[in-house]
C-alpha cells in the first residue's frame, strides 16, 4: 500500500498555510477540541502509547519528556518549541512552519494543555524571517478564531503562543542553550541535571520540543495512538520527514514511514544520483552523524535500524555525495562549520574544533605530515564525551567517521601532497578558500 503523507500532503497547494484551508482540508483544530475534553495526563498517556519520538535529533520519547515536567510546583510551566533548525542538511521544519503553520500552532496548544503550561515560545532561527512572518500572521488568526488566548474554545484553559527570533547561532538548537538564548543571554548549554523538565526557562519546569514533534501531536490525539504506531516499525511509529540534499536529481523534503529504506529514499523519492554518477557516501541524519557507504543503505530509515547500521537518524537530513567528493575536503568543510558554531563554553570543543580544522586544512592543502593523522584521532578522542552538550561529539564525528572508512584518502593526501582524485573532478567540485 503506498504511503499517504499526513504532515505534508497539502504543502504544495496554494493557500495551504491559511486557517480556512487548514480547517477545511486537514480537520483543523479538531485535535485541540478533542484534547480539551480529555484530562492532561490522558493526553500524555496517549502520546506515550503512540511511541512518538523527538524529531529534533536525539529521538527521546516525547510522552516521557512531558511526564517528567514537574506537576506539583507553584511556578508557571513553559513550552518551548525548538524551531532553530540549523543542522546542516536539515530543512523539514522550514516547510512545516511555512506551509502548514496551524498544525504547529495546534500542536503547541495541545502540548501546553497536557503539561499545564500557559505560554509557549517558538524559538525560530534569525535567518527564517520570512517563515516568522507567516507564522506570526497565522498565530494572530488563531487568536482571533479563539484557538489561542484566554479560555480557548470555552474550556477554561489559557494558552499564549509567541514567536521568539534568534540571531544566528547553531548552538541555540541545544535545549538548554535555547533556554539561555530565550532568557536573553548567549546561547550556551547548561550543566544537566537539572533537566529543563525540572528547571528550564526562568528556572521553571519546561518542555522543549522540535517543530515536527509538536506537529505530530494533533494527529495522535485525533486518530489515536494505535493508528500512529501502525505507520512505522515498532517503536518508530508515525510519519517522518526526510530532507534529501546533495548530489541527487530532485532534492527536497519527502514524507515517508520509517519502513522505507535509505536506498528507496535516495533512488525512488529523490530521483537517484545527479548525472547518474556513482554514490560514494551518505550522511543519514545531518552533519553530526557517521557516514554510511553504498552497501549499507538497505536498512529501514528508522531510529533503531540506522543505529544498528552504525549511524544515527538524527534530524533526518540525508546528504548524498557522489564519487567526486574528497572525504578530507568534506571533513574540513564540516569542521569549519563546527569551529564557527562552537559556543566556546567547554575548552575541549572550543579549542579542539579549531585544531581539527587547522589540521584538516593542512592535510587538504597537501602540507600534511604523517603524524597528523594520529593527531587528528587524538584531538577528536579528546573532545568526545568531554563537553557539556552533544556538540563536541557531533564535531568530532565527521573526522572520526571519514578517518575510519576513508583512511586511505587521508594517507594519499599526506603521501602525494595533494588531493588524489582526478583533477577534472576537483575542478567540478567547489574548492575551499586557501585549499589546492
Amino acid at each position: 500500500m503506498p504511503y499517504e503523507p499526513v504532515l505534508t500532503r497539502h504543502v504544495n497547494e496554494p493557500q495551504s498555510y491559511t486557517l480556512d484551508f487548514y480547517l477545511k482540508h486537514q480537520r483543523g483544530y479538531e485535535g485541540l477540541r478533542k484534547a480539551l475534553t480529555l484530562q492532561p495526563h490522558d493526553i500524555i498517556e496517549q502520546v506515550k502509547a503512540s511511541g512518538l519520538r523527538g524529531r529534533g535529533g536525539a529521538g527521546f520519547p516525547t510522552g516521557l519528556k512531558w511526564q517528567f515536567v514537574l506537576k506539583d510546583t507553584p511556578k508557571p510551566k513553559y513550552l518551548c518549541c525548538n524551531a532553530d533548525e540549523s543542522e546542516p542538511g536539515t530543512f523539514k521544519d522550514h516547510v512545516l512552519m511555512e506551509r502548514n503553520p496551524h498544525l504547529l500552532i495546534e500542536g503547541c496548544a495541545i502540548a501546553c494543555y497536557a503539561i499545564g503550561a500557559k505560554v509557549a515560545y517558538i524559538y525560530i532561527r534569525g535567518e527564517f524571517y520570512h517563515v516568522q512572518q507567516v507564522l506570526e500572521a497565522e498565530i494572530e488568526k488563531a487568536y482571533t478564531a479563539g484557538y489561542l488566548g484566554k479560555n480557548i474554545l470555552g474550556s477554561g484553559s489559557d494558552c499564549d503562543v509567541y514567536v521568539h527570533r534568534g540571531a544566528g547561532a547553531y548552538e541555540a538548537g541545544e535545549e538548554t542553550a535555547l533556554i539561555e538564548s530565550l532568557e536573553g543571554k548567549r546561547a550556551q548549554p547548561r550543566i544537566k541535571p537539572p533537566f529543563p523538565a525540572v528547571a528550564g526557562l526562568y528556572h521553571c519546569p519546561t518542555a522543549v520540543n522540535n517543530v515536527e514533534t509538536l506537529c505530530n501531536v494533533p494527529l495522535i490525539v485525533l486518530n489515536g495512538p494505535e493508528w500512529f504506531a501502525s505507520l512505522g516499525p515498532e517503536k518508530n511509529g508515525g510519519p517522518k520527514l526526510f530532507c534529501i540534499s546533495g548530489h541527487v536529481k530532485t532534492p527536497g523534503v519527502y514524507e515517508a514511514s520509517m519502513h522505507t529504506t535509505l536506498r528507496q529514499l535516495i533512488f525512488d523519492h529523490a530521483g537517484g544520483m545527479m548525472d547518474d554518477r556513482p554514490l560514494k557516501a551518505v550522511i543519514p541524519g545531518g552533519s553530526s552523524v557517521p557516514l554510511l557507504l553504498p552497501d549499507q543503505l538497505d536498512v529501514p530509515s528508522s531510529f533503531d535500524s540506522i543505529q544498528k547500521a552504525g549511524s544515527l537518524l538524527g534530524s533526518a537530513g540525508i546528504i548524498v555525495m557522489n564519487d567526486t567528493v574528497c572525504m578530507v575536503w568534506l571533513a574540513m568543510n564540516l569542521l569549519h562549520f563546527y569551529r564557527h558554531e562552537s559556543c566556546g563554553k567547554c575548552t575541549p570543543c572550543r579549542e579542539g574544533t579549531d585544531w581539527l580544522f587547522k589540521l584538516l586544512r593542512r592535510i587538504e592543502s597537501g602540507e600534511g605530515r604523517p603524524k597528523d593523522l594520529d593527531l587528528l584521532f587524538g584531538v577528536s578522542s579528546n573532545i568526545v564525551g568531554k563537553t557539556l552538550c552533544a556538540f563536541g561529539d557531533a564535531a568530532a564525528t565527521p573526522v572520526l567517521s571519514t578517518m575510519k572508512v576513508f583512511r586511505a584518502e587521508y594517507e594519499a593526501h599526506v603521501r602525494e601532497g595533494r588531493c588524489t582524485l582526478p583533477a577534472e573532478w576537483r575542478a567540478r567540485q567547489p574548492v575551499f578558500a586557501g585549499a589546492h
Partner: protein
Amino acid sequence: MSFHPRMDYAPAKFHQSARALPEEGEPFAYTPENQAKFDACVKRYPPDQRKSAILYALYLAQGQQGSLTRAAMDHVATQIGCTAAEVEDVVSYYTMFFTKPVGKYVLYVCRTLSCALVGAERVTEELEAALGIQRGETDPDGTFTLVEVECLGACDRAPVVMVNDGWQERLSPDRVRQFLDDLRARGEASLSGCHLCKER
C-alpha cells in the same frame, strides 16, 4: 565567532568577529514607532524577565541605524534594565548583529556542505570578483556587504544566498552578475524568495 584573532590559521579577513570595542557613534534613541514595538515585545515575557527581549531590542536598533554602535547598545541596556556589558556580551555572540557599518544589502552566502557540494564556493568567488571585495568586506559605495555564513536551512535549493531578510535560491555562479544587476535595479523585489511562498 573566533577565539584566536591573532592566530594565523586563515586569512585575516576570514574573521567576522572583531575584538576592538565598537564605535561610540551618534547619540541613539529609538524612534517612537520602535519604542512602541519594543514595549509591545516586552509584554510577551514575564515582568521580571525583560532581558528576554534583548535580541528583539537589538534587531530594532540595528534596523534603525544599520549597525550597532556603543550608543545603541547603551540605549538597549537602559531599555532592558541591564548593564552595557551584558548587551555587548550578547551582541558579540550572535552572527546576525553588526558592530561596523554594513552595505545596503548584506549578502549572506551559505557555505556549509549541501550548498558547497553544488558550488557555493564558486558563487562566493564570483561575487568577490564582481564586487571587487573579499568576503567579510563592504564595497566602497556601501551597497553590498559579502558575508559567508553556515547552513541556512534550505539545502534542497542550494546554493542559497540570504539578502538582508530575503532569500535567493539556486543561485548558480554564472548568474551572479545578473543577480547583482537585478538587485541594484529592483532591490529585494528581484529575489527569488523562498519557493514555498511563491503565491503570496
